[in-house]
Structure formats: C-alpha cells, structure tokens
C-alpha cells in the first residue's frame, strides 16, 4: 500500500455538479478524468504524477460504481500499449507517467498507437519533470509529440484550466483520431487550488456494459502496407482536424489589448510566472490583466498557423517564452512568419536562456531586455534584476564559505544502506570495482558518504549498462537494481541478456518489497495483502528460471554476511552472472505498520521490546568513521562534553529505529568500542523484573554503581 493515504481526497472525487473541488492539481486531473467518462486508467508511478494513480488505487468503490478499469502497469510501455483499446473501440482511456523517462520507455507503443490512430479519446498525462526538484535527465516531451504526431497540451497552471484541458483533450483526441499528451510541470501537479466540479460520468462501455470484439479491419493495424497511408493521414487528415478543433474551441487564449506593437507568446504552463514578472513591471496585475497583447498556448503542438500569424501581424516584435531546448516553437513560428511574409521580429532564446528552467529571474531578465530593445525600457524590472544579482554577491561575500549541499539520503534505518556500507568496507580490501547504478532509492548511494557509482543509464538498465565492462577489468563489475527496476525491465534487458551472453558480472537486487522511491506502491513481488496489489512473485524463482545458477540471498542488515557474500560473488570461479538478492523491507513502510501496533500494545500494558543504538560519548574520540560508513539521519554529531576535547562526538538521536546497522558496521569494519545497543523492555514481566533485580544486586556487590532510575522516595529529602 502506498505511503500516502488519500482518505479525504477520495471523498472529493465524488463531488457533483456545481460543488467546489479543493485540492492538488494532479488530483484535479483525476477528478476531470471521472467527469470525462473515462473507461480505463493506467500508468506507472513516478513524481510528480504518482498521486493520480495512488488515489485511484484507494478508490475501488468509485471505480466499481462507474465501471472503470484500473491497471497499475509494470512499465510505461505497458501503459502506452494499454491505450491500444482506443484504436478499435469508442473507449476513453488515460494513462500517466513521469516524463521524459516514461515517455522514452513508452516510445515504441506510442509510435504504433499514433500511426493507427484512435476512435476513443486517448489521453497521456505526463509529469514534465523539468527544473528545480526534477530527478531525471532534462529533455522535453515536446520532441516525442513532434516525432510521433501526438498533440501536446500545456495548460495554464491553475485547476480550472487544467481540468478544462483534460476534458477538451479527450474531445480533441476523438475529433482528430489522435492520442493527446497533457503535460504538467512539477509545480503544476502539486499546486493546490479549486474548481467547480461536474458529475462523474460512467463510460458507455465497461465491465457493466460489454461490447463486442471489433470486426477485422486491417486499417487499424500499424503494419505494412497501411502504415504508408497512415503516415499521410496524420498530416493530411488528422492535423487539419486538430487545428480546426483548437480554433473552434478556443483552446489557446488571447489576452490583453487587441492591438499593440509588441506581443508575447507563452506556453500555457509558464503564464503565471510570466504574469508575475509583468505585474512587477506594471504591465499586468494579479488577475492576469496583461497590458501587452499575449497569446497563451495551451496547445503547443500542433500550432495553428493562422492563429500565430494573425497574432503577429501588425506587430513590430514578439517575444516567445518557450522553456527548454531545442527551441521547437521558435523554429516553427519563424517558419510560419517567413511563409506568411510577415516581418514581425521574433525573439525568444536570444533574450531568454537556451536551456534550463524559466525561473522568475530568467523571465525578468529576458523581458527586461526585450522591452529595452524596443524603446520601452522598464526601470522597475531592470533595477529588480540588478538588485537580485547584487544581493547574491553581497551574501556570498559575507558568508565567505561555501554552504554544504543537502541532497536526499537513505531514510533512518533504510535496509539498503547496509549494502553500501558493506561495499565501502569491501572496497578497502579489494580495491575499486565498476558500479553500475540504477534508478530508485539505492541511487542515493551516489551521494556522500558513499559517493559510488560509474554510470546511470535508466530504470532497470544497470546490469545491461555493465555488459561491455564485464570481462575488461580486474574485478567484476557490480550492478545495483531495485525490485522496482527488476520488474520494470531489468529482468529481461539485464538478467536475460547477461545469461544469454554469459556475462561475468555481479547483480545485487534490492528487495525491499515495494516501489519505494515513488511512495511504496506494490510490485509483482510485494507481499499479497487484502488491500494491496502485491502478488508475492518470487524474484529468486524468476532469476533461476531465466537460467542464473549462482544466486544468494542475504539479509541486508547483516553487514558481515553481505561483505562475505559479495566477496564470494566477486571471486568465485563460477562463470556467468552472479545474483545477490538483498532482502530488507522498506523501513518507512515497516515503521508505518509496526509503530501504531507497538504503541497500542504498550499502552495496553503488554510487554513490548524496542531497540535503539547509543554512542558512548566518553569512548568516542570524534573521528566519525561510523558516519562515513552509514550517513543515517539519526546518527549525527553533538558537542563534546569533555572539556579536554573539542571535536564533536558521534550521537544517535531519538529517531533511531534500532535497525542494528551501527553495531554491525562497528563490528564488520572494526571501528571502535563506542556503540551500544539499548534494549528497552516496556511493561516488563515478573521474570524480567526478577532477573534484573538479581543482576543489579550482584553487580552492586562486585563494586558496580547503583545504576538505576532513583525510585520515587517516600522519605522526605534531607
């Protein structure tokens, strides 16, 4: 079950006509899907669109009532292929994933889908993971829309606009027989706003109202010879239909005065950021009352030439605000202006950054230059840009030291951390090894204190990316893969490939039981539970079936055993792929399960044991080797109480979940004798109490201190 519970959000999915929906942008999309009569929904989890699926997974009742089919797909390719249902049937379908990576994985199915075309509206909601907060390579989904002729929506980042574009997206898809991508940037997915809801609509066909299999129609197959006419249809039939729909339904918006000698064209998703800079310059207000003619492109592909030229005609110059590169829109608009023989000057990437997020500063600077170039120099904007730069320089000078970065780390007690502690310990003994990194929580080992890894090639790709390295080095390469990556495609591209080619390589599969980095969604190997989607498929059995002979299972927290197993994998004469399955349940999920249970038992007076670790401040000498082998958030430092020493000592804070890594590492790396495990017995049994009493009495007889919490004394203090 997922990390976040959507109990209250689920209620708002039931809102009807005229009621006001309050919530997150991406959940607004979910509601809009239900209002649009969607028949099936699928996708693959990943920020920033994860919540769209998570909330539906928890909304079984609503889905059942409406007859909607929900699929938590094993990859984006599977999700894209699922849209194949709309090729032959009048079914509206929506899938979602993180882009650009998910779109890349889905590319094959998307191309085939786009060629055949759809009769039921097909909507792909992608989280454009671009700019601050992004976790993937920086590329534009726009390129994929262009190459496959998929339409691309980029709505203004507020809920009414997003919801409208979801609804219109289905209509556009059906009007032009083309799948449509709705792109939402990170902040738009997470923006909290409101819109006026409509009743949910049950799909015309579903499990409740079944339809007959489609008649054989070769035209619906993306297969020769119909691929040739399909390609022509994309441009001669579907494109004009789409442009007509965009104009008729006014999907793009013209704001501000009708005429003016300067104009602005902006991607819908950037409008709010642009407006705030215009407001600063006194050229707009907080209600979006722009004073310069502005064309907001809620549809960024296809562009409608007459709309563009109509807007540009009669203007001296237009500034195009298009985030990311290449500058697809700028190229397209330049061409339109040239063909229409308009000499309106087009600016874009000459004033705005070629690449990278269009932050307020980038926008402000570009806008300021644009205005100045046409004799409308804006003092306010210019001095703001100047003051921001000056302030930054001043602060940097005052600070005089660089601030340490704070990248994400493994959570407290994470079961994956010990594996990297083991690798660091083994590195001392065996020297460096090539490490192929994958996507998932385990990629956090690329940050300090582990700082390891040689390449990242995508989700489930680590083992495949080490294929050409194996056999070329003294030590065998080690590939890390999560259970998520394994099921996403690592099993086939990695394991099957390595078996087929007899690659002399080592694979560590982190089996933490969930797709943890994205919020603990269930995987095929997740434990089957009543409310979950896990099926308990055994990774070991799967790997064995593919033909791996050397398979070991380790409990990650047993560092010494992990070190020994990994050493064996690196040295064994056994040929071919060596697979280590590292078992350890995601600690976030585990704590969420056991903490309330433990608290309940303790409150009920039942005997409960809990463990935590402790560093003896008198014994610690402040070298922090332990931290360099762990990096656990609960293992930190504190000032040295010893007046003779100044280096801070290691310290375990009260967030410690007692995973045991500290003790294991201090043993495995032979660190120091500072660590102690504290076992707290709450509500001890009579036997516990007696044993304790005997021990403390004997200890006292043999010169030990009276080391007990002072019993509440009945004798008045002296």
């Amino acid at each position, binding site marked *: 079950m997922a990390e976040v519970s959507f109990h209250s959000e689920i209620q708002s999915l039931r809102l009807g006509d005229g009621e006001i929906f309050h919530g997150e942008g991406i959940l607004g999309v979910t509601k809009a899907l239900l209002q649009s009569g969607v028949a099936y929904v699928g996708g693959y989890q990943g920020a920033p669109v994860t919540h769209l699926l998570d909330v539906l997974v928890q909304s079984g009742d609503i889905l059942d009532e409406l007859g909607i089919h929900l699929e938590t797909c094993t990859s984006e390719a599977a999700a894209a292929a699922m849209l194949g249902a709309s090729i032959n049937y009048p079914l509206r379908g929506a899938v979602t994933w993180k882009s650009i990576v998910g779109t890349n994985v889905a590319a094959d199915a998307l191309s085939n889908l786009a060629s055949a075309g759809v009769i039921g509206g097909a909507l792909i909601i992608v989280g454009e993971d671009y700019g601050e907060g992004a976790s993937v390579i920086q590329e534009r989904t726009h390129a994929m829309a262009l190459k496959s002729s998929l339409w691309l929506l980029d709505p203004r980042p507020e809920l009414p606009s997003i919801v409208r574009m979801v609804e219109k997206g289905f209509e556009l898809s059906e009007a032009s027989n083309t799948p449509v991508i709705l792109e939402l940037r990170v902040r738009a997915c997470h923006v909290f706003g409101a819109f006026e809801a409509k009743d949910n609509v049950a799909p015309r066909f579903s499990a409740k109202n079944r339809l007959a299999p489609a008649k054989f129609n070769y035209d619906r197959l993306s297969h020769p010879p119909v691929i040739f006419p399909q390609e022509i249809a994309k441009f001669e039939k579907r494109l004009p239909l789409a442009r007509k729909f965009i104009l008729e339904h006014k999907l793009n918006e013209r704001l501000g005065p009708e005429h003016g000698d300067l104009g602005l064209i902006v991607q819908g998703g950037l409008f709010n950021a642009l407006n705030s800079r215009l407001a600063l310059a006194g050229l707009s207000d907080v209600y979006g009352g722009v004073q310069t003619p502005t064309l907001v492109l809620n549809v960024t592909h296809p562009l409608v030439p007459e709309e563009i030229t109509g807007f540009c005609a009669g203007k001296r110059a237009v500034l195009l605000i298009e985030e990311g590169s290449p500058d697809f829109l700028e190229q397209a608009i330049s061409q339109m202006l040239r063909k229409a023989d308009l000499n309106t000057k087009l600016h874009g990437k000459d004033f705005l950054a070629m690449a990278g997020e269009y932050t307020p500063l980038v926008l402000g600077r570009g806008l300021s230059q644009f205005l100045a170039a046409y004799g409308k120099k804006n003092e306010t904007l210019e001095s703001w840009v100047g003051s921001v730069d000056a302030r930054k320089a001043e*602060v940097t000078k005052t600070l005089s030291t660089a601030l340490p970065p704070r990248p994400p780390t493994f959570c407290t007690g994470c079961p994956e951390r010990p594996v990297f502690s083991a690798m660091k310990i083994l590195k001392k003994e065996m020297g460096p090894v090539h490490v192929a990194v994958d996507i998932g929580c385990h990629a956090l080992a690329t940050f300090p204190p582990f700082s390891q890894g040689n390449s990242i090639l995508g989700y489930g790709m680590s083992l495949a990316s080490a294929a050409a390295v194996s056999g070329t080095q003294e030590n065998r390469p080690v590939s890390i893969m999560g259970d998520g990556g394994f099921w996403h495609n690592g099993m086939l591209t990695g394991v099957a490939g390595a078996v087929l080619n007899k690659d002399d390589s080592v694979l560590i599969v982190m089996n933490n039981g969930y797709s943890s*980095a994205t919020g603990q969604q269930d995987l095929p190997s997740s434990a089957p539970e009543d409310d979950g989607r896990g099926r308990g498929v055994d990774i070991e059995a799967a790997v064995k079936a593919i033909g791996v002979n050397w398979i070991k299972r380790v409990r990650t927290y047993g560092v010494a055993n992990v070190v020994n197993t990994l050493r064996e994998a690196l040295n064994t004469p056994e040929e071919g792929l060596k697979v280590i399955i590292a078992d350890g349940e995601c600690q976030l999920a585990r704590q969420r399960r056991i903490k309330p249970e433990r608290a309940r038992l303790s409150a009920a007076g039942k005997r409960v044991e809990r463990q935590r670790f*402790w560093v003896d401040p008198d014994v610690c000498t402040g070298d922090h080797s332990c*931290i360099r082998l762990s990096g656990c958030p609960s293992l930190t430092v504190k000032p040295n109480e010893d007046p003779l020493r100044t*280096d801070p000592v290691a310290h375990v804070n009260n967030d410690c979940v007692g995973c045991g890594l500290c003790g294991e590492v201090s043993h495995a790396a032979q660190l120091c004798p500072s660590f102690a495990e*504290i076992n*707290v017995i709450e509500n*001890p049994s009579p036997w516990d109490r007696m044993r304790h009493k005997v021990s403390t009495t004997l200890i006292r007889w043999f010169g030990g201190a009276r080391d007990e919490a002072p019993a509440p004394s009945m004798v008045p203090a002296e």
Partner: protein
Amino acid sequence: MSDAKPIRLLIAALGGEGGGVLAGWISNAAIASGHFGQRTSIPGVAQRTGATTYYLEILPRAEETDGKRGPVLALNAAPGEVDVMVASELLEAIRAIQAGYVSPDRTMLIASTGRVYTVDEKSAMGDGRLDVERMESVAKKFAKRALLANFAAAAAGAKSQLNAALLGAIAGSGVLPISVEAFRAAIQSEGKAVEANLRGFEAGLNLAASGGKNTAAEQGEAAPSSAKAESDTELETRAKQALPVVAAGIATEGVRRLVDYQGPEYAALYLDRLGRFAKPGADGRLIRELARHLAVRMSFEDTIRVAQLKIKEGRVVRLRSESKVRDQDIIDVTEFLKPGPEEIFSLLPPRLGRGVLRLVDRLGWSEKSFPMKVRTTRFGGFLRLKLLSMLRGWRPRTLRYAEEQAWIEQWLDLVERALAVDVDVAREVAETARLVKGYGETYKRGHANWNRIVREIVEPFLAGELPVAQFADAVLQSRLAALADPDGVRLGDVIDSVRALPAERRIAAE
C-alpha cells in the same frame, strides 16, 4: 488594473519534516479567513531528508476580483519578493538568503536555529560543523525582521512536531492577515494528531511572544552541576600554582582525568611534563593547549580504559534519560566490542608483546579480531569488564603504555624544539596531537599521518631546509589536510606544495 499584491511566503524544510502539512495549514487558514490562497511544492525524491521548498501566495480578502477571473498567482518564489521566509533549520535559512529570498527591505525571517547536520559536516574527521554564530548574524543582517529560535527544541519539549511549532511562530509573529484562532482551526479541521499539533503550535506561539528566547532546558543547558565542591587535591593546587592562569583550568581537569585513569603518580608525571614548558618564550595559550592534548594522550584508550568507561558510574541512569525510558521499564545495554590482536597483545610486557605481535603478523592473523557483544547490565557481562578494568595497576608494564609514553616524549621534544624557533610554531606542532586518536584503523591512520607530517614538514623546517616564515602555516595546513580525507590525498598535495617552497625561492633568486 488592480493594485492588489499577494503576500508571498516561502518555506524551506527538509524532506520528512512535514513542510507540506505546514503549507497546507497556512493556506487552509488563509482560505477559511476569506482570502485567496495557493500553495505548491516540489517533492519527489527530495522528500527523503533532502533540502526542499514550499511556496504560497495569499491574496487578501479586501481585494475584490474584477468578477471575470480569479487571481493568477505564481508558482515560483522570486528573489527579492518574498514577504515571509520560514526555515525549519538554520543552514536552510542561510541557503534561502544566499538564493536571494530574504531582503532587508521586505522579508520577515522565521527560522528554527536547531541544526540538522549535513553529511558533509558530520562525516568530517574532526569538526566539520558550520559556525552557528556567523550564520545567525547573517540571518539578522539580511532580514527585515528575524525571529530566530530553536523551534525544534520547543516542539520536542511539547512532545510535538517542528512544523506545528513553526505554525505557532508564524501565527504569533502576526505577519499574515490570519488570526491565531484561524490557525488553530486549521490544525483542528485537519483532524490528524490534533492534540500534539496544538501543543507544538502553542509552544511556537509562546516562543514568538517571547521574541524567540528558548527556555534553558530547550537550549540544552545543563542543570547546575551537582559536582561536589571538594577542596582541591594537592596535585590540583600544584597545577594552579605552577601554570599560567589560562592553562590552570584545563590542567586541573587533566590532573583529575589522570588520577582516575591511573593514579596520583601518573598525574604528577603529567605536571612534570607540563613543567618543562613553564619558561620564557612559552605563552599561556601554548601551555593550555599542551595541557589539553597531553592529558588526552596520556589517558590513551587501551582495552583497560574502555572497560573502565563502560562500567562508569551514572552511565545507565544517563542512558535511561537519553532514551526517554519510563521509570517502570527495564533496559539492557549490549556493548559492541571487537578487539584485534594489537589491542589484546599490547597488554603484554613490551618484549613479549612485540614478539607475539610479530608472530601474529607472520601467521597472517593481524586482521583477525574477536567480535563480542557484552551485556553490561547483566552480571556476567559486567564481571568481564570489571576484571579487565582491574588490570589498571598492570598498565604501566604493558607494551601499549611503553609505546604511548615514547610517542608523548617524541611529541614534547618536537614542541620544545619548535618553541626555540617561535611560539606560534610550537603551538601548531602541539596541535598535531589531535591527529592521534581513536581505535583500530583510525588510530593507525592518525599515527601514519602524524609521522608523515613530522618527517616531511616539521623536521625539514627544524633543519632549516624550508623557509621558516612558512613553518607554522605549513604545519597547520598539513594538519587540516590530514583531516580532509581518510586516504591522505589532500595531505599529499599539501606536502608537495610545501616541499616546493624553497625550490620556488631558488628560481626567484636566480
């Protein structure tokens, strides 16, 4: 055109601290107060303890819409245009200031001064912590108003969470057009952990009312020490009389440490050693630092010492309070020990010990060690450590003792020779003792680094092979470099650049 301006609020927090919940409380309170509120964030993988931000814009109710459209609010904070900056941690506040989100003419900064150390800071081999005072002065300098207090400690004191205390601080500071009651209502209507969150809220509210003054307990100040006001022992009196005032306090502490460690005679040896430096040329600061390092090095951490400390009086009491154990509960303490051959056989007399260690080395057993888990709260475990600690009287006859004393003499000789050059040089040479510490690997690495610095830097300078003006700085730089990475890479670089000094001079002279 409307003149209305939204109030802009940026929250910097660490993933998992509940920054999203805090942003939710604020915007819900704003909306419930009739304002227009919008919030957004950039979670994703940063939610795993990384630095992240949450951004809100609030358009006050008084501003009527033009009837056609709702407000168009931004999703990104703009530098120089943030009205309220909230930071859950001091470094994150400074990071926000550096990014330009705090301006002297506009921004109210509300920051929790408690530190959550970054991995870079806490994994340093010495003290890698940032300077808190400097950060606080930067925070005050660049904010229009600054409310700095340890809200994390206040929240913990109220058995609540930091985000609730920060909400209280925001409410108490009165920067938003939202009543305290509306903020409380936001917590209540959320319906999760309401009691605890309200406790934290009130704690933050009170802290804001007091202008950010934490209570003594929250500041982590120790309660007045109940240390017995015994009169000084003879040795302590001697330390106070013979040494400069600035050094006497540390030396007295050193005497106590060594009496406990070995006995009065050993503490007397400590004062004799310090006495060598009570002469012209040596200043109080040098003697103070010598007194500090000498006491630490003389109380070296051999197996006997570790046993002594593990059964020290007051340990379990302290453990109980640190782990927040209720009086009726029982705790068991398991020590993780793993002595290697060096730790064990260095308890033998020097000749025998060296012989055994040579044999161990020849047999290839030097990396072997004996993992032990000893329960000091059970009689059996206690007895083992008690017996070990009783070897104290035997200690002066051990190999480890002989080696440590030889090292101390070598170090003191170097300081004395350096003092003949300059007191600053002597101080830096004295400071190199910091490198020698710890157990096992750490101890060996420290020794190796120290020997390398003596061989490559100190001795050549003393021999006049390198320009004396650079002496003190070279020793300082090499000491810092030795603590920069465990592999000695930086130290190698520093040594190379120091060794290149006279060569440069020769070229210049030619």
